[in-house]
């Protein structure tokens, strides 16, 4: 269409042509771009403040931890290339050479390499009271608790002894200390991000790490990450150039995104299972033409906990545990995307013991325990909340308990309110889930069952001096011996039924058939640098 003819058109046609031109130039070349749909806006991308599980898939691409987990759940070196200890109390961590922060104006020379100072600074920041991940360090690193309470200006146990070596001194020897750091929750970021002039921007448009992707832009509905072309890990150079994380809260919109093939990766929420999946867990038509579903194991464990101060009758607790048909819950709510558990240690973690059939569901034995108990028919209150299928779990549990004659009343609260009541001990039963960040059973058991950990995270108010002594002994035991001891401790604790462990959740991950190599570690770390995309 020549300019003369365009000029001769009516005003309406000119405007229409203008719109078309605008739309045309607005279409960007995608290249290797992939879209990841999430359902809540991300937290502020300041590592010490991140708490929402929905934010971790994003933050773990930008920030890297000292150690990581491979696809088999084993600890591997990341920003720390090797470590030494003679007594499990003092640890020397050697910082990997040649790792650079993402380029940014906050650095004098656009970027710089990480040093032991950065590692020490980051670890100290994670001990601050506002840090969500401080629980990983406070009861272990010397001086961390005092620093957290404002009684010290630095953490005594974190020292830089060499430009590339950090020394960490613990309160007491702890063989599995490295497992505490095997998560990207504890990551390295530059001190410059905390300067006063960047304080308000930090975590919004400013998020500088060492990861395979760097932050290009973020809004409440879209976060764009681009490949870090100077990423240190030569064997894991990202294939996809750009990840677009889209926040889509509305379920209709999510389904529309899938139907229009505008999604490359999405964790399918439970509410969409009946719409997208068949009862056997596979995809319905037409989604099966363009997508695949993958069940990704995690360390997320769901349970119904008892407040042992309010539900003291161990026979009643055992009866309720044995009368719980976990498989029914998993089939009804998760279409099979979960593994039934009866213990604390989830499948996939070292030390996991698969339960026997009679331990999982046995109504005869449940009735026997109920007869031996002192239960007189009183109504027990179960606190449920608004996330992770809690209310639906509560309803199924209520109907299962009714079959053996135990009356349950559901009390629904928002998650924050529920947690407050659980911590205050103002509950009898409560629905809760844990996202384990530890990669070995010792810290899991210590945190859940030590008397010193009441009320957080020992929500059950479980206290047994014999178990306390056995848990204390785990700190210095050699690995294999500790695993055996952990299994015995767990078996003992489970007999007292502090909780009804239900299942270990698997994520139903939907991904486009164009992408491959989707891996997620047990710590919910999406290894997006390994993902490949076929753009043909």
């Amino acid at each position, binding site marked *: 269409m020549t300019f003369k003819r365009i000029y001769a058109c009516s005003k309406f046609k000119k405007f229409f042509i203008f719109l078309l031109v605008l739309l045309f130039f607005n279409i960007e070349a995608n290249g290797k771009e992939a879209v990841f749909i999430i359902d809540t806006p991300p*937290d502020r991308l300041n590592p010490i403040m991140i708490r929402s599980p929905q934010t971790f898939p994003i933050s773990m691409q930008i920030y890297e931890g000292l150690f990581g987990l491979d696809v088999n759940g084993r600890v591997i070196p990341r920003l720390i290339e090797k470590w030494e200890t003679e007594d499990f109390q003092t640890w020397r961590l050697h910082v990997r050479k040649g790792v650079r922060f993402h380029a940014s104006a906050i650095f004098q020379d656009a970027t710089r390499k990480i040093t032991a100072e950065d590692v020490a600074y980051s670890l100290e920041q994670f001990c601050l009271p506002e840090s969500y991940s401080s629980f990983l360090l406070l009861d272990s690193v010397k001086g961390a608790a005092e620093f957290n*309470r404002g009684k010290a200006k630095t953490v005594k146990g974190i020292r830089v002894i060499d430009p590339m070596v950090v020394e960490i001194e613990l309160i007491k020897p702890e063989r599995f200390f490295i497992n505490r750091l095997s998560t990207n929750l504890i990551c390295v970021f530059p001190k410059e991000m905390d300067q006063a002039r960047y304080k308000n921007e930090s975590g919004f448009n400013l998020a500088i790490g060492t990861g395979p992707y760097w932050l290009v832009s973020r809004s*409440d509905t*879209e976060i764009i990450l681009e490949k870090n072309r100077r990423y240190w890990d030569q064997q894991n150079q990202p294939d996809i150039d750009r990840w677009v994380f889209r926040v889509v809260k*509305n379920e*209709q919109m999510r389904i*529309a995104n899938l139907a229009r093939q505008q999604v490359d990766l999405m964790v399918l929420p439970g509410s969409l299972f009946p719409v997208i999946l068949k009862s056997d867990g596979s995809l319905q038509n037409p989604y099966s033409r363009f997508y695949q579903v993958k069940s990704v194991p995690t360390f997320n464990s769901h349970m119904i906990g008892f407040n042992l101060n309010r539900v003291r009758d161990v026979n009643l607790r055992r009866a309720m545990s044995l009368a719980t048909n976990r498989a029914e819950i998993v089939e009804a709510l998760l279409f099979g995307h979960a593994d039934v558990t009866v213990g604390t240690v989830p499948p996939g973690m070292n030390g996991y013991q698969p339960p026997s059939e009679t331990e999982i569901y046995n109504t005869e034995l449940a009735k026997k325990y109920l007869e031996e108990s002192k239960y007189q028919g009183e109504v027990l209150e179960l606190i449920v909340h608004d996330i992770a299928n809690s209310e639906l779990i509560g309803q199924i549990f209520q109907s299962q308990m009714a079959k053996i004659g135990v009356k349950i009343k559901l009390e629904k609260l928002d998650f924050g309110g529920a947690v407050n009541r659980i911590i205050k001990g103002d509950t009898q039963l409560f629905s809760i889930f844990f996202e384990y960040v530890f990669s070995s059973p010792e810290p899991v058991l210590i945190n859940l069952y030590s008397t010193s950990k009441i009320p957080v995270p020992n929500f059950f108010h479980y206290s047994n001096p014999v178990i306390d002594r056995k848990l204390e002994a785990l700190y210095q035991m050699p690995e294999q011996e500790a695993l055996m001891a952990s299994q015995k401790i767990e078996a003992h604790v489970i007999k007292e039924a502090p909780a009804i462990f239900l299942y270990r959740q698997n994520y139903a991950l939907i991904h486009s058939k164009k992408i491959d190599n989707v891996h997620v570690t047990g710590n919910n770390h999406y290894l997006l640098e390994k993902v490949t995309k076929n753009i043909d």
Partner: protein
Amino acid sequence: MVINVAKSTAYYFSIWAGVITITFILFHVANESPARTILGPSADQQQILQLEKKLGLDQPKLVQMVNYFGRVLHMDFGHSYVDQRQVSKEVMRCLKITSLLVIPALFIILGYLFFVIWIHLVSKSGSLTDWFEVSARSFPIFFTGVIMAMLCAHFYPVIHFSGNLNSINDWLFMLPPALVLSVYPAAVLSEVLKKELSKTTGSLYITAARGFGFPERSLLFKHALRNTVIPVLTALSNILPVLFTGAFIVEIIFSIPGIGSLLIRSIMARDFPMIECIVILNSFIFVITNLIFDTAYQFIDPRMGGKND
């Protein structure tokens, strides 16, 4: 007229001061310690006391209230309890996005009103639009919103809002929610307009002017409309703040990151500084809207100013 404007300003700002006082009482006096909320339930008492001192919460309540008023007037609502972001900056950012919903909705409403006037001019009867208005007034906004969202999910080409406003897709995305937001107010205002138009165009002075041979268009736009517009403006002054609150619902349905979404998130997270700021801002919008319309009446009809200056 100046005195009347000054009186109205004093009146409405005293209402706003009352809202700020009630907000202070609700969030600072009747609530658990903000320090406890920030530090979480496992913080010990010493940490709580330290933070309370840092935030000025150890001062007497009256002193805290005076300081609070001072900060509000400077638009300083502090930092979020959840992630320490600056509250006023965040609320302004979200307000900008909500405005992108409300302003097009306003234009759609005004466009519809002009359409109604044109129909009246052409056909002198409003029955063409009556059926639409009855339906629009009958359906609540959340219903029309959900229906529109479902239709958009299937048929509308743009189903995602990036939030950066850099691409035309973001602007196109706003059209269906703006339409949803405008439906009920357009129906209400149109009904008021039609009633007033019928009354005014049937009055004696218009009949006399017609008898003198005045052109119909001139009669309508120069004489009748000016008398019709006052009740419509009154209705609009009530509708305008409701547009903002209606926008909250539309934002939730369409996942638009505006003030409504921010409010819901803040309530769920017990982020009191954010909630305070939104409540005070909302009341400020009510106050300013009423003040503007009160002043506008006096320009349109000087008789409404009382004794002339």
